[in-house]
């Protein structure tokens, strides 16, 4: 009996140590993109509670989450997608904007490369001003790592904010493209930050977008 107990405990500690080593992958520290200057791209906070589809947490990214019948999209092709309408607040020189955000689990995710995220697609329009599209890859690896250590160590080691935008795993870039109005032809960058809720209910997000006008061609 003692031998079995020691064997089970050894295996359990081995699994915990293995997961800790996996999550501690140093690649995760080098994957994020630097933040945008707040004076040029002020962060707009929003709640993404009003969504349809998957919850978008780590369990969904690992494929072990159950479906929430109240919000899930039942179409087979949309089971790993989250979509919703978001209102970005006014402030810091910009009016409120209406936006659509669609996230789809990235098929390029890899547990060995510390990549566990979604491809996020935005369409944003400011009334009377114009609209932009944006796409980015949001890597939730560091949030998964800190959540694991918080669970194992029994402390509150979650950071207040997680900058999640990282270069897409496959070829491609996180980028902004002007669509309509005065932003037509603009290009730019996007960053997203995730604020984990300490009480376990929902999360808050913030998005920063910096756009540049198209270069002027000399005559």
């Amino acid at each position, binding site marked *: 009996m003692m031998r079995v107990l020691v064997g089970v405990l050894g295996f*359990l500690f081995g699994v915990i140590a*293995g997961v800790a080593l996996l999550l501690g992958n140093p690649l995760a520290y080098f994957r994020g993109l630097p933040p945008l200057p707040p004076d040029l791209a002020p962060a707009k906070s929003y709640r993404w509670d009003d969504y349809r589809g998957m919850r978008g947490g780590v369990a969904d990214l690992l494929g072990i989450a159950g479906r929430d019948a109240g919000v899930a999209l039942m179409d087979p092709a949309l089971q790993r997608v989250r979509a919703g309408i978001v209102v970005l607040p006014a402030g810091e020189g910009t009016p409120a904007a209406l936006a659509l955000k669609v996230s789809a689990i990235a098929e390029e995710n890899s547990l060995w490369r510390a990549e566990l995220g979604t491809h996020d697609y935005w369409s944003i329009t400011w009334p*009377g001003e114009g609209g932009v599209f944006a796409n980015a890859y949001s890597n939730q690896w560091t949030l998964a790592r800190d959540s694991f250590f918080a669970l194992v160590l029994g402390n509150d080691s979650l950071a207040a904010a997680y900058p999640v935008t990282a270069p897409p795993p496959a070829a491609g870039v996180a980028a902004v493209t002007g669509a309509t109005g005065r932003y037509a032809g603009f290009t730019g960058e996007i960053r997203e930050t995730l604020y984990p809720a300490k009480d376990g209910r929902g999360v808050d997000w913030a998005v920063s977008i910096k756009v540049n006008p198209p270069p002027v061609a000399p005559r």
Partner: protein
Amino acid sequence: MKRLFFITFLAGILAVALAATFWPLPRHLRFHALTTVPPDGGRQEEFVIHWPEDRIARPDEARDGGPLAVLGAAVLEDSAGRRVSAELFRLRDAGDNVVGVAGRLAGTGGAIADRGRSATSWLLVIPGRGALFLGQNDAFDTTVRQGTGPAGPVALAPPQAATFWNDRPRVRVTAMAPRPAAGGVATSGRVLRGTSEFAGLGGSFTETWDLQEVNADGSTRGRILLSTLTLAGT
């Protein structure tokens, strides 16, 4: 005992390594792309949205707004009357398979569009294939309006009311362009950019609304047709 603990400890680490290697991370169900190649080049692909059934309602959205109210839409209007509306749909391929999610953002006024017209941004996300970003000037104001229903404020979309149609079964939404776009099509609809499988593609598109049925309560059924023509490096 120490040896047993050490061996099982290593077995635990090995189990994690094996799980990390062979864990079946989620993948999207993917349908074959139903594309055609026109004689003068490019790739033509049609996407279809049926209204009202392909509208993606918000969770707990009330369905008692009357027959003309649309689900899954939002309207934002500033004090100058410049309006933006957002709509979410399931996106189908030409074979009527639901392949993705489509978002339509239409805006009026200011720098966006001339008086009485709107400009629209279509976001087409096909999981596993990527996304297409489309932009166009509309031939008329296509924004969803805020109205009042029996149970409070409701969103009203022009094509979902029978009065919009006036005996015409089909409406081209995309405004004509003064100059032909890629492929010689005179449309203001532009494929601005794509990601993943659509990366590096540009081109043109047109949006058409087809009326299929007028209901006795004044509401309609129909379909939105997005015909895209994409070319590499445009």
